[in-house]
């Protein structure tokens, strides 16, 4: 019996000196393990009477229970101390230090183009891709600009040595798109397509002129497409693009591929139509040429102009990007300068 109380005192004394879980586990094995001191006590019971065995065994078991409980208490104590130490060790961060926001960027044309595409996709338009190098037929003949037509003078076109050319307008895709979807018209499926693309004009560059720029053209063909529809779509699109209700006005404009053709103006975004230097005090900004697709263009695309009508419009994506982001020099877009272009991280 004395051994039991001795052992308990010894265990207690050792336990107080324990500072970590490794030592504690060693202590646990020393006393409570299969070969531990407490278990060993039971091996000395042979000499005892059955009555004594019973009493002694109960005492040993009591000690065992006690020691196990103490070990558990110690574990909890150590764990708490450890958490306390961890808390104490945590420094106060300087959260006011500048954030690192370095990340990638889209070209601003991509951002503007995506916004425009999203608007038209939501209205059921397909988005068409088209080459940059096209034939004279695609760029001119097919869109009612025959040879010697004065409109060819208006476009300073880059020609290639093989007779092809860098497309001077996105209208170069019209013929192919009409042919691609024309057969579906008779099944009642209208042609609704937009075709963004890069265009080229052989001219000197300055802050307002680029020889390489982006346009987005769109068209819709069906049985009863009207001027009224055209104005509706233009107004809807531009209201979405500029995220506000824009006022539009149409003026007659001459473009060989449409008849009637229009210049579409929107009320100035800067002054709201009051007149300011941006709109040359007119209150209006000339934004996109548009019109009813010329019967010759439909015919050339294999569509009967007696049955079908359509509208087409062009939108200067580069110009739109300049307006939207207040870019003053058009040459910034193709400058390849990350100082300028890495700013367009996202716009959605």
């Amino acid at each position, binding site marked *: 019996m004395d051994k039991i109380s001795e052992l308990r005192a010894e265990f207690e004394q050792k336990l107080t000196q324990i500072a970590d879980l490794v030592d504690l586990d060693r202590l646990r094995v020393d006393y409570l393990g299969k070969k531990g001191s407490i278990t060993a006590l039971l091996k000395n019971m042979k000499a005892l009477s059955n009555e004594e065995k019973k009493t002694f065994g109960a005492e040993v078991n009591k000690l065992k229970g006690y020691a196990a409980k103490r070990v558990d208490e110690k574990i909890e104590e150590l764990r708490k101390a450890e958490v306390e130490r961890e808390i104490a060790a945590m420094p106060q961060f300087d959260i006011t230090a500048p954030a690192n926001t370095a990340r990638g960027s889209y070209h601003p044309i991509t951002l503007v183009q995506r916004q425009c595409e999203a608007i038209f996709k939501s209205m*059921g338009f397909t988005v068409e891709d088209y080459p940059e190098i096209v034939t004279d037929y695609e760029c001119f003949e097919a869109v009612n600009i025959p040879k*010697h037509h*004065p409109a060819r003078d208006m476009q300073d076109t880059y020609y290639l*040595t093989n007779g092809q050319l860098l497309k001077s307008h996105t209208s170069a895709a019209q013929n192919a798109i009409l042919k691609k979807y024309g057969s579906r018209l008779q099944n009642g499926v209208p042609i609704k397509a937009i075709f963004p693309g890069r265009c080229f004009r*052989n001219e000197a560059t300055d802050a307002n002129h680029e020889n390489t720029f982006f346009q987005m053209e769109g068209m819709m063909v069906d049985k*009863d497409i*009207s*001027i009224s529809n055209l104005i509706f779509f233009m107004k809807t699109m531009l209201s979405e693009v500029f995220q506000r209700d824009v006022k539009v006005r149409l003026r007659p404009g001459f473009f060989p591929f449409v008849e009637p053709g229009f210049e579409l103006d929107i009320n100035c975004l800067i002054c709201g139509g009051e007149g300011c230097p941006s709109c040359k005090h007119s209150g209006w900004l000339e934004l996109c040429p548009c019109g009813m697709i010329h019967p010759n263009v439909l015919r050339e695309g294999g569509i009967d102009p007696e049955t079908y009508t359509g509208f087409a419009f062009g939108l200067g994506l580069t110009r739109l990007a300049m307006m939207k982001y207040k870019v003053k020099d058009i040459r910034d877009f193709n400058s*390849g300068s*990350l100082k300028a272009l890495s700013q367009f991280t996202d716009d959605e």
Partner: protein
Amino acid sequence: MFLSMNWISDFVDLSGLDKLALIQQFSLSTAEVENDIFFKGSDISGIVVAEIKSVENHPDSKKLHLLKVDAGDGVLTDVVCGAPNVRVGMKTAFAKVGAQIGDITIAPRKLAGYTSNGMCCGESEIGISDDNSGIMEITDDIPTGTDLKAVYEIDDIVFEVDNKSLTNRPDLWGHYGIAREFAALAGRPLKPLDTEDLSAYDALKKVDLKIEDPLCYRYSCLQVENITRTVSPVNMRIRLYYCGMRAINFLADLTNYLMLEMGQPMHAFDSRKVEKIRIKRFDKPFEFQTLDGVKRHVDENTLMICNDNTPVAIAGIMGGLDSEIVEDTTTLTLESATFDAASIRKSTVRLAHRTDASMRYEKSLDPEMTDVAIARFLNLLKKYDNAVQVVSALTDEYAFRYDTVELNFDKSFVDRYTGIEIDNATIIKTLESLGFAVKEENGVFDVVVPSWRATKDVTMKADIIEEITRIYGYDNFAVHTTRSPLYPVRMDEVKRNEEKIKDILVKRYSLHELHSYVWAYNDELKNLGMEVEDNIKLLNATNPNIETIRNSMIPTQLCQVKTNVGYAPDFGIFEIGRVVTGMTENNLVVEKKKLAVTLYSKTQDVKTLYFALRDMLAVIADDVKHTPLTFAASEPQHAFEHPVNRNTILMNGVEIGMMGIVHPEIGRKIDKKAAIVFAEIDMQAFGEQENTSILYAEPSKFPPMDYDLSVVIPKGVLFADMQACWADEGAGILRGVRIVDSYDTDLFHSETMRFEFSSSERTLSSAEVQEIMNRIIENLKAIQVVLR
């Protein structure tokens, strides 16, 4: 082109209407009006006709004169005047005390000791010409004291129309055509032109005239004599000046006036120089001196007006110096003609000489106008110079007539095109006001297009829609959406890939999207020690530096990297753009859309950067196509590629692109201390690969088992070679092999590979895994890969 409201008002009564509102309406219905509208004469008041009664020299000034002026108010006014042309009896424009000239209010003022109670004005001071040589000389018989504005059209509203917006409207190059538009917009009648009846001279001899070239459509001429007037009437000069032309002399002014009024260019020859008018081209180029004194090279394509075989004018562009009206000219031959528009335009370009006349001819003028113009010219000539005599009959060769354009359409056509209701009466009224002859029965319209719109402008039904709607006013349109049925829209595969790739590169890898030009820039490439590789060229590049179309986007990106060295120690750029990689059998370019990526790093070694790029491409392939890429060593194809570590990129065994490292020669010129790697993917080839969807594998409920193998790998053995050693040995339970550790010594390369086994059906036994591994180890031994 500048337009005068006074002039327009000659032909349509616009009284009581808001002129500015009309101009605005014109801009929205006809042609774009520039923003600045000029209120001529609005800053001028109190200027009267006065007579100079006496002139004395100023005692102390050589320039100044002391005048007594009768300004019509019963007294003589003392005026000090510095103009050289003062003389007694001369009538002039006099600004009385209190008069307004611009910002100046005239007040009594001391000049060199004498008080001047007013000012005699020059024409430039009043703003009616640029003549500042002296005070205005008034030769018309006007009582003194008359307000100048009461007799001369100083007050006017002048506006400018953008010439470009008149390109397709040959009828709008003169005030009469413009007035027709105003009449239609205002709903008021257009007055006929005052003309002279030319048939009165039919009995006179004809001019010897012959059109010998189909490029001349019509040539009308008339000979007149005895023009005594030299200075044009004031109002005529004011109108010319307001419309941007200088007064020269009566005859020249009158031809200009007629051009500005009717849009018909006219020319006056000395009749002695055009006895036999022939219109033709010459076989050979020659030199020709135009009336501006410039000697011009005229080629065989240029139509000429000739006196028999001597050229006297470049048709439709400019007269010759030798046939000009001179001092002793007595008889004039007036030309009013029409020529082939395209021919004039091309001659203008070749001569690099564009005139007011050629500008109009380029637009396809109405040939019906030539004789009317002469009749109008004569009317004005006689009005201002009644001594004039006509000495020939109207001589008129009409070689080419446009067909009369008749159009038929019904009301439903108009309804379909406009989408709104415009009633029959409005349609008829609108078309008639523009000069169309209209017949309507039961909603079917028969329309005859007036000759001035029938040269190219209005040829078909859709053109009629424009006429109706523009006068109706687009602002008055009710707008509505379409009634077309809806169908799902499928995104183009290449386009879809493009957008996904952009997102992956920007959002996941922090790359920057840049744009560039489709041609190679010789200079920039030279700076980096690169030659432009031969490829198809631009025919008409104004800048020889940009004449070759690029065959790869990588050189462009290397230039861009150079531009941005210093932006950051590490960055990556990409672009989806175009290149030309060759020609087809039909001599058409092979245009390819490519994704180009270039990475630059000062902090990572070239191997790390190259593998980062490889991983990027693998992620793109997996995200967009759910298909792995494979890479194969290949030979460099361009001088900018490093000879080592150039790889072909394949998907499903199909080549879709390449990746490589910059050649050190070029790399050094960009940045000696940086690693630069690049890749180019053919978007079409990539797009054509099958788009597999994600194959979901249910996670196994049984524990996986890993088996690590450390091996020593001899030089030249690739991971792909080792892969072949276990490709067929997995027994359906080898899920993957990863490299968990690798190191190199001088002697060997070592890797620890982790083989991951799992089954979805059972718990694996060590024995079966060991069996598989034993076979793999045997296979590896066969390629000299041994356990470490």
